[in-house]
């Protein structure tokens, strides 16, 4: 047993981080916000060229040939920088929807009665007929609402009980979304710590006050708990473990963004600070794939 990342996995993570730091830095993030939710097709193709979508397509089919544990690391990095777009749906469509793997085609999917990025997508999986636009809480995730039940899957997950056998594409979508949440939770922890070290009040860095320190420590604990759960689930591919990982990752992302906002004080409440972008995206990811109530039911059913 060795739960640590392998040398290759560390290199992969480093490579993705470097790529995203270069191609989607803070300036690009704010430009994307200002653009009002248009998808950057050049960036999408660059992600495709880097293997972001073809990561798990077998090598003989032109993919990178890696597995779910590697995909989880890559999506953690995407969540860290708030990379926009229907990343999970396009990644999962690579190999089946032509052009998805290369980043030429943008694929979205109906999930929980919502469709993200409907106007920008080339292919929509699921029935989006009659979808109406929503004033999305997240400036970087345009949303449509599908009328009626709208493809909400397994609403009564508790009664259905946990699926047996390895997770299907739905489970993978849940897990990759959870990985993005972990990345965001780690990033807001870093942001809070960095602010707490630099900001001075009462003649000292506020990070020296236990009231602030303990908030930050709690953020790290939530992140580590969720990260361990997500990585383990990527290895076991057990549906109950995936549901548990999503639950903890949602909690880590949303609660950490709120604590990060609190540590930033008044600045945290401004549009200018990035904190709100993490919180809003975390809310979207929490709702879009296996929301908390059903995740809890799914784990309970495994008892």
């Amino acid at each position, binding site marked *: *047993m060795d739960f640590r990342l392998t040398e290759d996995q560390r290199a992969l993570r480093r490579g993705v981080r470097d790529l995203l730091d270069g191609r989607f830095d803070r300036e690009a993030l704010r430009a994307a916000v200002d653009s009002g939710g248009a998808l950057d097709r050049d960036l999408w193709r660059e992600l495709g060229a880097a293997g972001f979508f073809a990561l798990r397509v077998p090598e003989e089919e032109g993919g990178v040939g890696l597995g779910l544990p590697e995909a989880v690391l890559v999506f953690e990095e995407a969540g860290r920088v708030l990379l926009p777009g229907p990343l999970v749906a396009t990644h999962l469509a690579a190999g089946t929807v032509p052009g998805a793997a290369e980043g030429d085609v943008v694929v979205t999917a109906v999930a929980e009665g919502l469709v993200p990025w409907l106007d920008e997508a080339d292919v929509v999986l699921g029935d989006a007929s009659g979808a109406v636009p929503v004033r999305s809480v997240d400036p970087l995730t345009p949303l449509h609402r599908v009328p009626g039940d709208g493809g909400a899957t397994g609403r009564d997950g508790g009664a259905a009980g946990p699926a047996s056998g390895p997770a299907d594409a739905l489970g993978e979508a849940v897990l990759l979304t959870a990985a993005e949440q972990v990345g965001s939770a780690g990033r807001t922890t870093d942001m809070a710590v960095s602010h707490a070290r630099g900001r001075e009040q009462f003649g000292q860095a506020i990070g020296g006050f236990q009231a602030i320190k303990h908030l930050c*420590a709690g953020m*790290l604990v939530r992140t580590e*708990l969720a990260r361990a759960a997500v990585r383990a689930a990527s*290895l076991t591919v057990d549906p109950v473990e995936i549901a548990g990982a999503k639950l903890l990752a949602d909690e880590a992302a949303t609660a950490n963004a709120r604590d990060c906002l609190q540590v930033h004080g008044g600045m945290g409440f401004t549009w200018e600070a990035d904190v709100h972008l993490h919180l809003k995206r975390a809310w979207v990811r929490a709702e879009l794939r296996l929301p908390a109530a059903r995740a809890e039911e799914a784990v309970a059913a495994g008892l």
Partner: protein
Amino acid sequence: MDLGCTDEEEEFRARLKTWLTRELPGLPPRPDPLDWPARRAYDCGWQRRLYDAGYADVHWDASPTQRLIFLEETELAGAPYVGANFVGLLHAGPTIAAEGTDGQRARWLPPVLRGDEVWCQGFSEPGAGSDLASLRTRAERDGDAYVVSGQKIWTSHAEVADWCELLVRTDPGAPKHRGITWLAMPMDTPGVTVRPLRTLAGSTEFAEVFLDEVRVPVENRVGEENDGWRVTMVTLSFERGTAFVGEVVACRRLLGELARTARKNGTWDDPVLRRRLGRLSAEFRALWRIVQANVSEAQATGGVPGAGGSVFKLHYSHARQELYEAAAAVLGPDALDLGRDWNLDRLSSLSYTIAAGTSQIQRNIVAERILGLPKGR
């Protein structure tokens, strides 16, 4: 990332399981929890069986993964826990193994492994709890002995211990971390008085120990004079790192029992309670993964567990208290009956966010040592 075990580790597991299946039915009945001499005899008897089977030093010599497997399988099989041997096997023993002389290791370690001698821990004082380094029990050199006077508190197993790992102040003039020395004190030395303390659970888990001019031979000192703080830190990080592995397994089993009880008594139909149990189950599954991550790290670095243990303990102690609150919700009015399972454990669990470093101290450790926030108030 790999959660699988090597062939060698699986063989270790299989051999252990076979042994447990054979050995456990022959154990004597569990003693009355209030009868300390009987508990000591029971715990030491179990340790002797481990010794005879070659598992006695699993906490020290086995690889971290083997230790994890040992703790997992013994808990799953319902085997006894270390009990009265906790300090000897998990605190004093590892300290002596790491910092003692050859002679000290030869004198003190074999009796711990055989279950012949029990140790207790004399660290905390009425005025030195979270701020342990401010301890004031004095030790003055007099020829070949230290003369020790002062008071210790929260000393588990003091009533039945043979030895005490004792922290004393040898240089009151030095900065507080630099004037402390680690001594091994025989509990039957004249001047040692033990007064049991009753916990809110009604039992005498620990005691106050009064020391009145107790003569401890200088040869019982582990490490240099005034270097006791460093020597001690080895044990404390050990405690936070692996001491709770078996308990996570136990908590997961308890969750299963809770779900069964809830399905029987109808409380499972309450979605709020059901979801609460689901959330706890997710947390304990994740805690187990954190244990595996910490063990992997320890295995790779060969070092003792570090601040990662604080991350674990912070969430574990909280989650375990929540687990017993959920158990009380499942039991309803029966939660008030101390004759029912889980209710005494609910009371005991109230110490988890205090013992072995309060949650507040753990958060300071995480914030300062992992996140790099400044020391301060």
